[in-house]
C-alpha cells in the first residue's frame, strides 16, 4: 500500500514538472486557421502594435501574438526565439548585412501581394531571384532644430544668416553655430547642440548616421552612376577620404554642446532628446523616429510646429544639392520554417496592416510610418511633424536625398571599434589618427570575416 502511494505521489510530481515545462503551447489550439507571432523591433511602437493586434483579431479571428525585444537586443532575442517550436512567424531584418544571418529562415515573398504592393521593387532585400524581406517604413535623419530658437537668433541684428534656407554648406553652418554659441545667454540655451551621446550602445548616431555622410561622398565620388550602397557592400576596404569633414562636424557637435566633451561618455540618446525637448539645446542630430521621444518628455517646451529638420553638411563638394539621409533598415521577413497556415496568416496580417483602411489608419496615425507601399495615396502621409518634414525633403525636387550607406557597414563590431576610438578622441585620450585607422583597419578585417 505504502509502495503504491509513493509511486503515485512521485508520478504526480513528475507530471507537474512536465506540465510546468510545457505551459507555452496554449496558442496551439487555434485550429487550422494559423496564427501569427510577430517579433517587433521597435520598442517605441509597442503600444501601437498592441492596438493593431486587437483589431486584427477582431476583424479576422486570427490570433496574433506581438512580442517586443528590448532596445538593442533584437538579434539575440531572435536568435533564441527562432529555435523554439513556437518561433516568430514574422521577424525583422536590418538590411543587407543582417540578411546574411537570417537568409536561411526567410520565406520567398516573390508573387505575394505584400511584394506586389511595394511601390519600388528594388527596395526589397533579395538573394538572387528570391525576395527575402520587404521594407515597411522609410525613415530620414538630419539635424533636427527648434525653429523658435532659430527664429530668435535670425531676428538678432548681427546674425550670420537670416533664415535656415540660407544654410547650404558646412562653412555657413559652422559660422551660424559658433555665433549662436557666443550668444547662448541671449538665446536662453545651454548649448547649440544637445549632448553627443557616447555611452555604450548609444553611439549609433555618430558611427552610423553621421558617418553615413562622408561614406556616401566617398562611394559617390567613385562614379556618379554607381549605387553607393551596392558599391559599399562590395568594398573590401575604404579610405575614409572624407574623414576631415567628419572630424569638422564632430568637433562642431562636441565643442558647441550642452555637455563638455569629457563628459559625453555617460550620455545616452534619451538624455540628448530630452535636452532638446526641454529647450536647453537648439539642435540635435536624429531622425523622424525621435518624434515620439521628443513629445514624450514631460515639461517639454518645444511645440510640434517648431520641430524641423535640415541636412547634415560636412564640407564636401556639391553637398548643397543633397538633402537629408533617407533610407530604411526596417525589413520584414516571414519565417520559412513556420507551418503553411501560419505563413498564410502572417502574410494576411501584413497585407491587412498595409492595405486595409483600418490598417493604414494605424500605420499613419499610431505607428507613424512613411510606408513604401502603393496602397497609400499621395495625401496619406504621417501626421507627426518630423514625418512630414521627411516627406517634404523627399519630395523637394531641388535636392537629392542621401541614401543610407551605413546599412552596408561590414558589422556591428566595426561600428563599436569606430565608436571606441571616437570616444577616446572626444575625451582627449586618443588622437584623430586612431579614429581613421580604426575605421580603415576594422572595415578591412570585418569585411574579410563576414564574407
Amino acid at each position, binding site marked *: 500500500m505504502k509502495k503504491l502511494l509513493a509511486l503515485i505521489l*512521485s508520478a504526480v510530481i513528475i507530471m507537474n*514538472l512536465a506540465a510546468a*515545462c510545457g505551459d507555452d503551447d496554449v496558442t496551439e489550439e487555434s485550429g487550422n486557421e494559423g496564427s501569427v507571432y510577430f517579433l517587433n523591433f521597435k520598442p517605441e511602437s509597442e503600444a501601437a502594435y498592441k492596438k493593431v493586434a486587437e483589431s486584427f483579431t477582431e476583424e479576422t479571428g486570427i490570433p496574433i501574438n506581438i512580442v517586443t525585444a528590448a532596445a538593442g537586443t533584437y538579434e539575440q532575442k531572435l536568435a533564441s526565439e*527562432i*529555435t523554439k517550436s513556437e518561433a516568430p512567424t514574422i521577424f525583422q531584418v536590418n538590411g543587407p548585412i543582417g540578411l546574411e544571418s537570417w537568409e536561411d529562415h526567410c520565406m520567398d515573398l516573390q508573387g505575394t501581394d505584400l511584394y506586389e504592393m511595394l511601390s519600388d521593387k528594388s527596395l526589397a532585400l533579395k538573394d538572387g531571384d528570391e525576395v527575402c524581406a520587404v521594407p515597411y517604413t522609410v525613415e530620414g535623419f538630419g539635424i533636427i532644430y527648434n525653429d523658435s530658437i532659430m527664429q530668435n537668433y535670425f531676428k538678432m541684428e548681427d546674425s550670420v544668416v537670416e533664415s535656415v534656407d540660407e544654410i547650404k554648406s558646412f562653412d555657413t553652418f559652422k559660422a551660424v553655430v559658433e555665433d549662436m554659441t557666443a550668444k547662448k545667454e541671449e538665446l536662453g540655451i545651454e548649448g547649440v547642440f544637445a549632448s553627443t551621446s557616447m555611452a555604450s550602445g548609444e553611439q549609433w548616431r555618430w558611427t552610423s548616421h553621421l558617418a553615413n555622410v562622408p561614406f556616401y561622398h566617398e562611394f559617390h565620388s567613385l562614379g556618379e552612376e554607381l549605387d553607393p550602397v551596392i558599391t559599399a557592400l562590395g568594398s573590401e576596404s575604404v579610405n575614409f577620404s572624407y574623414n576631415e569633414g567628419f572630424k569638422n562636424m564632430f568637433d562642431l557637435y562636441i565643442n558647441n554642446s550642452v555637455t*563638455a566633451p569629457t563628459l559625453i*561618455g*555617460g550620455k545616452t540618446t534619451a538624455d540628448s532628446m530630452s535636452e532638446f525637448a526641454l529647450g536647453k539645446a537648439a539642435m540635435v542630430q536624429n531622425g523622424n523616429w525621435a518624434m515620439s521621444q521628443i513629445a514624450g518628455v514631460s515639461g517639454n517646451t518645444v511645440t510640434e510646429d517648431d520641430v524641423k529638420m535640415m541636412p547634415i553638411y560636412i564640407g564636401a563638394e556639391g553637398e548643397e544639392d543633397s538633402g537629408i539621409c533617407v533610407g530604411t533598415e526596417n525589413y520584414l521577413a516571414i519565417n520559412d520554417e513556420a507551418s503553411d497556415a501560419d505563413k498564410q496568416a502572417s502574410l494576411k496580417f501584413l497585407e491587412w496592416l498595409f492595405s486595409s483602411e483600418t490598417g493604414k489608419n494605424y500605420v499613419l496615425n499610431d505607428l507613424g510610418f512613411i510606408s513604401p507601399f502603393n496602397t497609400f495615396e499621395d495625401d496619406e502621409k504621417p501626421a507627426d511633424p518630423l514625418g512630414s518634414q521627411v516627406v517634404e525633403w523627399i519630395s523637394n525636387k531641388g535636392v537629392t536625398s542621401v541614401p543610407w550607406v551605413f546599412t552596408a557597414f561590414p558589422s556591428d563590431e566595426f561600428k563599436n571599434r569606430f565608436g*571606441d576610438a571616437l*570616444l577616446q578622441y572626444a575625451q582627449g585620450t586618443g588622437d584623430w589618427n586612431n579614429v581613421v585607422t580604426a575605421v580603415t583597419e576594422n572595415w578591412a578585417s570585418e569585411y574579410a570575416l563576414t564574407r
Partner: protein
Amino acid sequence: MNRSLKKYFPVFLLPTLLAFVISFVIPFAVGIYLSFCEFKVITKTEFVGFSNYIEAFTNSDFVNALWFTVKFTAVSVITVNILAFTFAMMLTRGLKGTNFYRTVLFMPNLIGGIVLGYIWQMIINGILYPFQQTLYSSADYGFWGMVILTNWQLVGYMMIIYIAAIQNIPGNMIEAAKVDGASSVQILRNVTVPMVSPAFTICLFLTLTNSFKMFDQNLALTAGQPGKETAMLALDIFNTFYSRIGYAGVGQAKAVVFFIIVALIAGTQLWLSRRKYEAEV
C-alpha cells in the same frame, strides 16, 4: 530504516535528478559540443574543431579581459578580507550599537548587483563631475569603481562569517594569553588568527569565485567602457556570444575555458579544506 532508504531513494531523488539533468547536465554537454561548432542558431550547427578556441586566444579581447579579471580579483580578495576581518574584530568587542552596525554593514549584500552597479555609477560620476571626468574617461576609474563596489557588496557578508568564527574562540584561551602577559597584537597573531583560519579559507574562496565570475555589477557599472578595457571575463563572453554575428561558437569556447578556470579554483578550495579537515580529525 537504512533498508527502506535504499529501497525508496530513487523515488525521492528522481524529481530533483530529472530537473538537474534537464536544466544543468544537458545544457552543459550541449554547450561543450557547441564550443566546437560554428552556428547562428543552436539548431543549425557546423563542426569546426578547435578553431573557436584558437580564435578566442588570438583575439586580444579575451586575453585583456582575463588579465583585467585577474588583477581585479587579486585586489578585491585582499581588500574585502582585510576590511571584513577588521570590521568583525571591531564588532565583537561588545561596543554599544554592535547589532545596529552589523546590520548596516550587511545590508548592501541584500541589494542586487545591477542596482548596486547603477547606484555606484551615479555616485562615482557625481564625484568626478566637478573634475570634468566620467567613469568612462579612463579604465582606471572603472577598475577602482569595481573594487569599491565589490567591497561594498561583499564586506558585510564576509564580516558575518568572521564574526561567527571569532565568537567561537573560547574565552578562556584569550584569558590565558592575557594572564601570560601577551599584548593585544600578540593575541591577534597567535590566538585569534590561527583560530579563525577555517573562516579565512571559506572567505578567501568565496571572494575569489565571486569576483572572478562577476557579471551584473560589471554590466551595470561600466559595461566594459571605455572601449572594452573594463570588460571582465563573463561580460566578454556574453558580448562575444550575443553581439557578434557568427561569433557564438567563439563565445561558447570562451565559456568553456572560463568554466575550467572556475572549476580549478573551486577544486583547489575543496582539496584544501578537505586536507585541513582530515588533519584535524
